[in-house]
């Protein structure tokens, strides 16, 4: 009889594999204890890596969750991984428990039913999120619907070295003119790098008279006409790019050393505070400043999502919730740490938590929220996919 009981106990965990209910937060916390969460996040930035390591220390101390940062060169690696696991029938304990994601990768995963959820709006700290004022409920026009939870706000800023380029430019046309006068001193990361495609979208949003067409999916009918000005713009710009467009930096952070060396005068970043942080780390000279365009710049939120086949969903939710906590958000906004924008609503915070944000020194190169101006919406991901493909065909295989 004893043996039977043991057998039953061994078999019992099978039903327990069914997903934990996010609404029952105590159950989530209980199950999360002792779990290991493999967070797949881009690993090319030291500051981000350090922040993630800090998150790991905190969730380990507070919730008993072990966080392992799987450093990606490209977020789509993680998407592929989950996809191949699904093909292989690995449905219970995939290699990935959480992904730093947004945009087309999110759209692809949501579309293919590769994500766990909805869970985001059940997380306790969701109550503090500025769900109305910040673009956290759509991701590149794709409804989020609780399948990913936000943890940072990003907005395009231009980074310039005032020692060699004293004045900002107010529009993409002005940038074109400046590049003509200063050939070889500007570049953008090579699409399909996320920041590189963002630059292309920023061009399109800025030079179109009416960018509202971008909010709906691209069609075979309108695509050529809408993007024609973009290609005309790039045809003119490319010969004046760094290395005449025969090579591109791999990522946004790869442009910082180029500015520091004086190879570039101007680059772009998706993190308003990154330049200040880089100055603090000797990666940029202290003459660097940032600016935005007159009509504003594109912004979006960074999210984390949980694959449907994660074996540590509870642990992943605990980490996702911690990322939205005032403690983590204030730290992420500190330019000495990350300099990322917060997703929280300041009015929803306690006075004590708010003070933590108010006390932050933004840094010499960081614009205030007011200076950041209008946040332009991301176009529908279908634009980005097609534009990135076309870019590769036109410029990515330069003859």
């Amino acid at each position, binding site marked *: 009889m004893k043996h039977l009981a043991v057998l039953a106990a061994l078999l019992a965990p099978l039903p327990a594999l069914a997903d934990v209910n996010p609404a029952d937060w105590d159950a989530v916390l209980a199950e999360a204890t002792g779990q290991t969460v493999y967070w797949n996040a881009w*690993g090319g930035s030291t500051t981000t890596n350090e922040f993630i390591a800090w998150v790991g220390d905190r969730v380990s101390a507070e919730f008993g969750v072990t966080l392992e940062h799987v*450093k990606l060169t490209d977020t789509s690696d993680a998407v592929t991984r989950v996809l191949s696991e699904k093909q292989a*029938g690995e449905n219970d304990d995939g290699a990935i428990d959480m992904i730093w994601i947004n945009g087309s990768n999110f759209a692809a995963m949501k579309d293919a039913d590769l994500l766990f959820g909805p869970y985001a709006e059940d997380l306790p700290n969701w109550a503090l999120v500025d769900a109305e004022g910040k673009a956290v409920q759509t991701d590149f026009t794709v409804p989020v619907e609780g399948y990913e939870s936000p943890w940072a706000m990003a907005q395009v800023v231009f980074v310039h070295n005032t020692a060699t380029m004293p004045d900002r430019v107010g529009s993409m046309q002005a940038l074109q003119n400046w590049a003509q006068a200063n050939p070889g001193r500007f570049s953008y990361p090579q699409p399909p790098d996320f920041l590189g495609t963002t630059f292309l979208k920023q061009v399109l949003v800025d030079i179109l008279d009416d960018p509202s067409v971008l909010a709906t999916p691209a069609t075979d009918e309108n695509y050529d006409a809408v993007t024609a000005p973009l290609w005309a713009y790039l045809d003119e710009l490319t010969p004046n790019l760094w290395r005449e467009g025969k*090579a591109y930096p791999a*990522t946004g952070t790869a442009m910082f*050393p180029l500015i520091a060396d*004086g*190879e570039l005068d101007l680059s772009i970043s998706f993190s308003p505070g990154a330049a200040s942080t880089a100055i603090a780390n000797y990666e940029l000279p202290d003459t660097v400043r940032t600016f935005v365009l007159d009509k504003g710049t594109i912004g979006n939120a960074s999210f984390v999502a949980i694959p449907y086949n994660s074996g540590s969903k509870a642990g992943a939710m605990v980490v996702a919730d911690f990322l939205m906590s005032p403690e983590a958000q204030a730290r992420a906004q500190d330019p000495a740490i990350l300099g990322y924008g917060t997703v929280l609503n300041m009015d929803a915070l306690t006075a004590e938590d708010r003070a933590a944000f108010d006390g932050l020194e933004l840094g010499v190169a960081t614009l205030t929220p007011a200076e950041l101006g209008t946040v332009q919406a991301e176009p529908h991901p279908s634009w980005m996919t097609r534009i990135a493909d076309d870019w590769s065909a036109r410029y990515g295989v330069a003859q």
Partner: protein
Amino acid sequence: MRRPVLPLLPALTLLLMLGPVAAGIWGTLLPAFGHLPAAGLTGPSLEPFVALFDWPGLARAVLLSVTTGVGATVVSLAVVTLLLAGWSGTRQFRVLERLLSPLLSVPHAAAAFGLAFLIAPSGWIARLLSPIVTGWDRPPDILIVQDPLGLTMMAGLIIKEIPFLILISIAALGQAQAQNSVTIAQALGYGRVTGWLKTVFPCVYAQIRPPVYVVLAYSMSVVDVAVILGPNTPPTLSVQIVKWMSDPELSMRLLAAAGAIMQLALVVGALAFWRVGEIAFAHFGRRWIASGARGRCDPIIAQVALFSGGVSVLVVLFGLFVLAIWSVAGYWGFPDAFPDGFTSRNWMRHGPGAFAALGETAFIAVAVGFSALILTIGCLEAEYRHGLRVTQRAVWLLYLPLLVPQTAFLPGLQTLMLGIGAEVGRIPVMLAHLVFVLPYVFLSLSDPFRAWDARTGTVAAALGASPDGVLWRVRLPMLLRPILTAFAVGLAVSVGQYLPTLLIGGGRVATLTTEAVALASGGDRRAIGVYGLMQTGAALLPFAMALLIPTLVWRNRKGLRHE
């Protein structure tokens, strides 16, 4: 009676070495012809190849893979051949050889980073010469690193292949009676270089042919060096395959598989082309020998070869030095030759991560290196005890895993492993490393092991020692130095593995090499400096130990000191 396991070891070793390669190619072939049942796709279809040929960058990517691969092989082989021809046996050559040996273990990625930090427009050479010599107060807008022709990438490969080919050739020289032949040729009025080329080179080349093929196959399909130094508009075919592999869209996987088959065909084609080239070369070589030309340009050729060899050594050494400077640099603007200040901050920031990666790297390398050593010793001992013959064909089997491009079978292996539900992580990564480590450990140990005087074994047996006793009490202690060297070779090979770790580890296994190459995309030179140095140290330290340990253990044994 205990079942002897020894006779089974050669078969097991071959299985461990070739099984993953064969399985991986199978796993690549299926999706290449549109067959991926897990995704609801059943073949056969030629769609993936149609899509591949539709990719606008294909012609250039293929051309790049071929030109950089063949170019790097031709140049490094030429430099090595002429260096040996002009200088082997001289004092200058011994100095060069002593410098080159440790460079063999410097990981490709670290050498590539060093080269980039050295020759980029904002690199150290430009800094040292600016502004006084060049007049530059900002780096010139010249495309050096990532140039569209892949010249920098070729250079990065050449500086690593020269040490490899030199050390392989020196081993081959021992059996070629080189000195006598050259002496005779010189007595007949031939120049040193010409005499060597006409008398010694044919014998040496016959022996180094397999490693030369390995260099060719490797150079054509390398990923990490190409990511760091190669062009991106478009990249080489191998890099593009890895990019396709990581695309979220499923159809891209089929494209990647088709590209992988293409890569395999390219390498096979290039090897065949090389073989034809050898025949043509031999034909003209014989006519050249028959012509009796004595070689009037010999001294110039010898000087050029020595200069090239010297430059390749210096580039790696100075590259590592610049990595070291960056790892402790504060703010360092152009054109300053040195940073404004030195700081331990970079090491404080990256040290913990780098040491964690070092732990993972060392754990994998030691486990893999040790397994490879056991298997190798087992095979060699089985060969000795059971009188197994080693045919030339078996030697080629050993080289096979090094000749099949990594990008051709690793993606397929990953797909297959997932298909059978194998857990990703450390153990599969170790098995994948073993595929590449085994051949090198075997090649490194087999010569000294076989060269051991069998009469010593006869004497020991006559004194009553059992076969195991002879192995443990006599043979292994006497071969301590070559065994440790082979182990160090195994460690260095494992430390340097990029693609197997990345693809088979499913991202969960972070070694110094994967971390360093991941940093390449971020361009943080201080972090790259820290990781590159750690990576180099991880590969170099075992070699230092392999020299030091026997010297200490046998400090009172003159007979074992100079082997």
